[in-house]
């Protein structure tokens, strides 16, 4: 009791000191480096890791309406992380993120890490720190069976391609198929609903997610193979080297002891 109180006071003093310092000095960078140092310890001291996951992505992170729990590849990986870092897979709290909200939520401190089908990209590396690759995906196309679209080259001027706001696939498809119209939606459910109601000719995103949709509705299929490489990484707030190292070591352990393969096999059937 007493101990926590003193540490709290010490924390406040430290914080105000660092704020003063950063106000005097160049600001920004110094401050993030100062607070970041404690991120891993902070997780350990609150004995809980808060992870941002998708709630609408079949096979990766999907809320099961009958149990109310989120399930998927990302979820199982997160639980393994909690097990490795905090010693118990139950010490993880999930928060819903979308492609659009995940980086702001991480930077606001709402979540400690993002495990949400997030591609490692140079652009994003400026905003967040990534772990090693934990899943290899690639962008592909989902169309209704019998569609004239067989691949990237069929995306011509009048074709409408549906994507999700804030995803790399939305940016990629504009480069790969500059003539097609790209319409962006809030999340995968809405994009898939729009595809089903004929608001677009193809839906593009990572094959991993598209397999989930094809799995849900057999009238739809993937075409044209993959045309990008989308290595998924776990993102943490910039400057948290200790936390990145802890995640990487947890990932390595998972891969070494076969747990990773087990999770992979459980969720991802094809490839």
């Amino acid at each position, binding site marked *: 009791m007493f101990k926590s109180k003193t540490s709290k006071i010490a924390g406040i003093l430290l914080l105000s000191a660092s704020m003063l310092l950063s106000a005097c000095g160049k600001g920004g960078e110094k401050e993030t480096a100062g607070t970041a140092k404690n991120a891993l310890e902070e997780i350990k001291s609150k004995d809980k890791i808060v992870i941002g996951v998708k709630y609408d992505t079949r096979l990766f992170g999907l809320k099961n309406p009958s149990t109310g729990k989120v399930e998927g590849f990302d979820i199982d990986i997160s639980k393994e992380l909690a097990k490795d870092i905090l010693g118990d897979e139950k010490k993880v709290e999930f928060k819903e993120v979308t492609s659009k909200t995940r980086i702001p939520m991480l930077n606001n401190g709402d979540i400690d890490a993002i495990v949400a089908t997030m591609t490692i990209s140079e652009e994003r590396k400026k905003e967040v720190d990534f772990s090693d690759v934990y899943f290899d995906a690639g962008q592909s196309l989902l169309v209704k069976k019998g569609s004239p679209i067989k691949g990237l080259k069929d995306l011509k001027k009048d074709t409408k391609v549906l994507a999700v706001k*804030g995803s790399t696939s939305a940016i990629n498809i504009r480069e790969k198929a500059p003539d097609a119209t790209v319409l962006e939606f809030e999340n995968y459910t809405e994009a898939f609903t729009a595809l089903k*109601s*004929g608001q677009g000719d193809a839906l593009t995103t990572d094959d991993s997610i598209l397999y989930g949709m094809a799995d849900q509705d057999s009238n739809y299929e993937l075409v044209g193979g993959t045309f990008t490489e989308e290595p998924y990484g776990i993102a943490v707030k910039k400057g948290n080297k200790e936390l990145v190292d802890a995640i990487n070591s947890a990932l390595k352990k998972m891969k070494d002891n076969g747990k990773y393969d087990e999770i992979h096999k459980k969720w991802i059937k094809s490839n």
Partner: protein
Amino acid sequence: MLDFSILINNLDTYLEGFKNTVLASIIALIGSFIIGVIVAVMRIAPIKPLNWIGSVYVEFIRNIPLLIIAFFFYIGLPAIGVTLSGFVAGTIALAIYTASFIAEAIRAGIQSVPKGQMEAARSSGLTYLQAMRIIILPQAIKIVIPPIGNQFINLVKNSAILGMIAGLDLMYFGDLVSSHTFVTFDVYIFVGMFYLVLTIPLSLGVGYLEKRLARSH
């Protein structure tokens, strides 16, 4: 401090969205006014079945979220073979939704004119429609202008619903700018400013009209 480079670098994107927001607002504004007047007339006309239809329209549309109406037009109608773009579906939804509020404002305005006025007009030999046009409506319009003006301002703000159904409006492009620049706060502040460019003149215009009408009688 706001990062104005975001606005400058993405000005084309913002303006494209702004243009569509203006367009959707104008179309929905005219549409909602026409539908609103028709529904209001149905609600107060001395014909029972018309009253019922008007009431059902108002109570039904007014009491469901605009987003649901927009989704209905965007992803519901294709089930019966009518495919509308996000822009068209959103604009129709906006007009239909706002019309229910406008109809209520007009009905309340007309009914707030004392009953004796109509009775006096009718007993001096005017028909129902004449009495409406010459005696009741000029008085009602003054009462009706402020709430209708408010509904128009709401309509402009509600047009952000287009962003949810790929309607290519200001909100939609704001989302895209945000997802490409990874900046949220500043991007949406600018989006908000563009809406103000539309709503503040509208608000002042309503205020002016209100004053002028008050003077003329």
